[in-house]
């Protein structure tokens, strides 16, 4: 009995000691935000990294030195998908001004949680079917950006004097979103080489670079000139393989996705195996969402981040990307914005128009 009392007392004391450190006044009038990510986290060098960069940029800080992390903004990574709903609720209970989630895998959880917290503001990237008054949804016209990188790769091959270049596409988990990347890329290539052979492969995973690396090796060995991967962390395997082969003197390229992956492909100090990157500027969404919260104009709904709005583009970071290619791609970019070039969003449309070959792994909803 006495022992139990002592234990209880000690516990109570320990508890009160913990309870004291509760005074964390929020001194700034800037909004607070939490980013929730899937298991790959903000080190995925693409999607989550971009969302995080946008948040950090909004507060005028850098990713290398996020001074206000933990005060104004933070990030919570879920290690498995059964943590999505609890993590959303944890964030909503903690009282952030805005909760950001990225990717369609979060949609079901968000649709479940958002109505339970009607005063909480949420935003999601890459989803347009939540239809909740407190959820701001951003979608991107990835097909437009992918068109540009496909065009750039094809023009580069032409400038290199390659007669019958082959091209590869590596996707993560097949979905209507990834299909937009693939179709745009194919249309870009076909505008230069109407009969080019295009191969595709889906890794069914966002975090398995070894799968992409093995596939890329196989393709490069069989004469593929350039591979575009839209596969999150998986795509890093493509870049690794392209790097190895370029160091060995082969003329092959990888194309980065979402973020500018030029730096990931650097070899020999100055050269990069990443010819260009399809830029999906997710950071612009988080910046936009946060600005809306700060200005008090936040409203649920769908916003399409098109090329015109600066949502997508391509990277000119690699000096080996020929000047004439850049000129031509920029011209095409203007044509896309003006509507002179229409890029299809679904495999079905592209098939019907004869813009994509049959038998690809791309899936529509």
């Amino acid at each position: 009995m006495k022992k139990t009392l002592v234990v209880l007392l000690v516990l109570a004391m320990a508890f009160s000691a913990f309870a004291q450190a509760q005074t964390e006044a929020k001194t700034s009038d800037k909004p607070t935000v939490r980013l929730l990510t899937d298991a790959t986290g903000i080190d995925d060098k693409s999607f989550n990294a971009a969302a995080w960069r946008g948040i950090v940029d909004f507060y005028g800080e850098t990713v290398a030195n996020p001074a206000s992390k933990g005060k104004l903004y933070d990030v919570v990574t879920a290690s498995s998908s059964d943590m999505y709903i609890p993590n959303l609720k944890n964030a909503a209970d903690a009282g952030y001004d805005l909760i950001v989630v990225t990717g369609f895998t979060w949609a079901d959880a968000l649709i479940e949680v958002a109505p339970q917290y009607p005063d909480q503001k949420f935003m999601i990237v890459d989803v347009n079917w939540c239809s909740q008054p407190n959820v701001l949804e951003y979608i991107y016209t990835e097909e437009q950006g992918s068109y540009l990188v496909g065009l750039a790769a094809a023009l580069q091959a032409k400038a290199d004097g390659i007669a019958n270049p082959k091209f590869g596409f590596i996707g993560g988990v097949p979905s209507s979103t990834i299909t937009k990347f693939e179709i745009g890329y194919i249309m870009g290539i076909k505008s230069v080489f109407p009969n080019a052979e295009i191969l595709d492969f889906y890794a069914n995973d966002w975090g398995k670079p070894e799968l992409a690396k093995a596939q890329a090796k196989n393709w490069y060995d069989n004469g593929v000139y350039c591979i575009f991967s839209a596969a999150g962390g998986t795509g890093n395997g493509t870049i690794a393989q392209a790097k190895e082969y370029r160091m060995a003197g082969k003329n092959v390229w990888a194309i980065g996705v979402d973020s500018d992956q030029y730096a990931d492909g650097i070899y020999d100090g100055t050269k990069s195996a990443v010819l260009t990157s399809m830029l999906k500027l997710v950071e612009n969404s988080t910046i936009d969402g946060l600005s809306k919260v700060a200005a008090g104009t936040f409203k649920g709904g769908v916003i399409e981040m098109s090329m015109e709005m600066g949502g997508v583009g391509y990277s000119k970071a690699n000096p080996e990307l020929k000047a004439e290619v850049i000129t031509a791609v920029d011209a095409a970019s203007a044509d896309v914005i003006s509507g002179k070039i229409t890029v299809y969003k679904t495999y079905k449309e592209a098939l019907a128009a004869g813009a994509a070959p049959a038998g690809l792994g791309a899936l529509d909803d």
Partner: protein
Amino acid sequence: MKRNDLNRTSFIDWFLGNDGAISFAVVILGFIFGTIIVLLVGKNPINMYKSLLYSMIGRARSNGGWNFRYIGETLNYSIPFVLCGFAMAFAYRVGLFNVGGEGQYIMGMTAAQTVALLLPPFPGQWVVCLLAAIMAGAIWGGIVGLLKARFKVSEVVATIMLNYIALYLSRLICLQHPGATTYNTAALPATSKLAKFLIPSSNLNIGFFFMLAAVFIYWFVMEKTKAGFAFRATGYNQDAARCSGIPVVRSISVSMAVAGAFAGLAGALVLLGGAYPKGRIIVSMDNYGFNGMAVALVGNCRAIGTLLAGLLFGVMKQSQSLMQDMDIPKEITYIIQGLIVVFIALRAGLQLVREYRAKRIVASKVASV
């Protein structure tokens, strides 16, 4: 003086002979090393303990009030850990190393989802879902048991292979479910969902009682029944068991099937427990099955031990979110879990120490006579 010596000897011997005490010490050791690592990376370990404590007692960080939902999530996370722990433990007591908890878990989940989505909704559908999951897990484990008992196929290799077969088979099956896209299916009908209890804002559901029932069943079967004795005897020494008339072949295949049933149930409880509004098409493993191996080893493959270890893992899982809130990398929970498992492996070494001490005591007694 002499008496004191004797006492000290007996404490060490008691400690070395008590698996529960060793497990406890190992967990403490894991946390001590975890604390050191947190300090080394320049973070405040108090925050780590705070988030663990808050997950256990349901205290909110932001407004200094209470948030009992944390307790609910913690308990809910521990359900699959405990059940998958039994999937490991049940086989382990029979002398088998079941690495296939993950595959059995996946098959259970797949079976439950198939029943939930393909049958028209009817009241009490969740019961059928759970039964289907238990059956599927039992079959998936039983295959290995049969292969092991009949053809001496290594259960380790077989279960590892079956994990991957389960993952891709599950994808094949689930892609045929109604409303299947590339990553989810149609919504799970309400009749297949498990009812929430106690803390309705959390995902805590009546699956918790099934987990508690499993603890009791495991304890009762293993420790109190003739069949349990046959299982354990097979585990200690197969040849001796066979010579004493214990049907070893049956023990091995049945034990793997029972182990699979526990993991299969875990799969169904995770799917129907509120974390998933829609059916799943898994792209990778949830790792509950693999973590269950660690849970069972920490819990020393005993009923209460596995329960406590599973609860500990549940606390660590829920606290991941709170830890990141307080600028502690969530990976520290994995490091601690890993350290605990590594230290648990030292138990064999402690056994040697114990034997050595026993020999020395006998020797000194002989000398003193």
